[in-house]
């Protein structure tokens, strides 16, 4: 599978999905007006990856900001990961948040409560 590598912009995150490594990353700011347009290719890619995933997939989410329209798209990403996990593959989500950012921690906990995939909350200490 071709990896997805997207450079970040002030409104969209850096993305690196590489099936050779099994470590996927979404990082930066995700506040586009049209988040579906940005996330659809990622969700489609995961749909294909789901067919023959690695035995272990690690997903690092390291967002500084995300808007509510991205929050639904990120849920769609997690739902694909949940399906991979359900098919007896190891999946782990690392949710990073800056030390004073309780809102970002709570956002991670929201997903953790909805999605049946192991989450690790990781505080970034400066």
């Amino acid at each position, binding site marked *: 599978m071709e990896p997805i590598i997207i450079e970040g912009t*002030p*409104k969209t995150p850096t993305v690196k999905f590489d099936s050779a490594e099994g470590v996927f990353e979404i990082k930066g700011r995700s*506040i586009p*007006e*049209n*988040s*579906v347009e940005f996330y659809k290719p990622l969700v489609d890619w995961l749909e294909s990856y789901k067919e023959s995933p690695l035995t272990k997939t690690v997903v690092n989410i390291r967002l500084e*900001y995300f*808007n*509510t*329209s991205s*929050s*639904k798209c990120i*849920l769609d990403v997690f739902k694909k990961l949940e399906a991979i996990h359900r098919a007896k593959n190891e999946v782990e989500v690392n949710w990073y948040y*800056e030390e*004073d*950012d*309780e*809102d970002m921690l*709570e956002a991670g906990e*929201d997903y953790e*409560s*909805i999605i049946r995939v192991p989450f690790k909350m990781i505080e970034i200490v400066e």
Partner: protein
Amino acid sequence: MSFDIENYLSDQSNGNVILFYKGNIDSNVINHVLDTVEDKMVAVNEQSKLRKKVYNVLVESLQNLYHHVDRVPADFEDQTAEKFGLLVVKKVDNGYKIVTGNFVQDDNIEKLEEKIKRINRSSHEEIKELYKFILNHQRISAKGGGGLGLVDIARKTGNKLEYSFKKYNDKYSFFYLDILVTEEN
């Protein structure tokens, strides 16, 4: 009562206005407003927790305008703005005030007001649950909104949403939303 945006705003003149905008709300305007307010908060060494909350609330309020405003009334002075909105950001004693304004067709008032009232009578825990419910059950609408903006604003600020509807003509009102972002929830 006559319709006058500037009068409404000068009525609540305490605090320093750090940004005032009225006109079309498009993607570039949103970028510009976000950059400007962020730079100003950094310049005065605002603590990062408050800065992030203000930024988040600004994103949601601007994108609410972007996705949901009704067309301007046919007799309104500014016909060039397809998505006419108003935004004021003010520094107040304990945080920031963000005021937005936009036209609403009278037929849409009841639904919007009901939504705000529901949020305002909910506890913080209930708002959290409401957020998760909408996140998990509601699709993104044709207009591109997720239906989460106001809920998110209330959740992040921990404050009630203040609002008013001022009659513009027989079909339209102007809706003001007044959001206080404080350091402590």
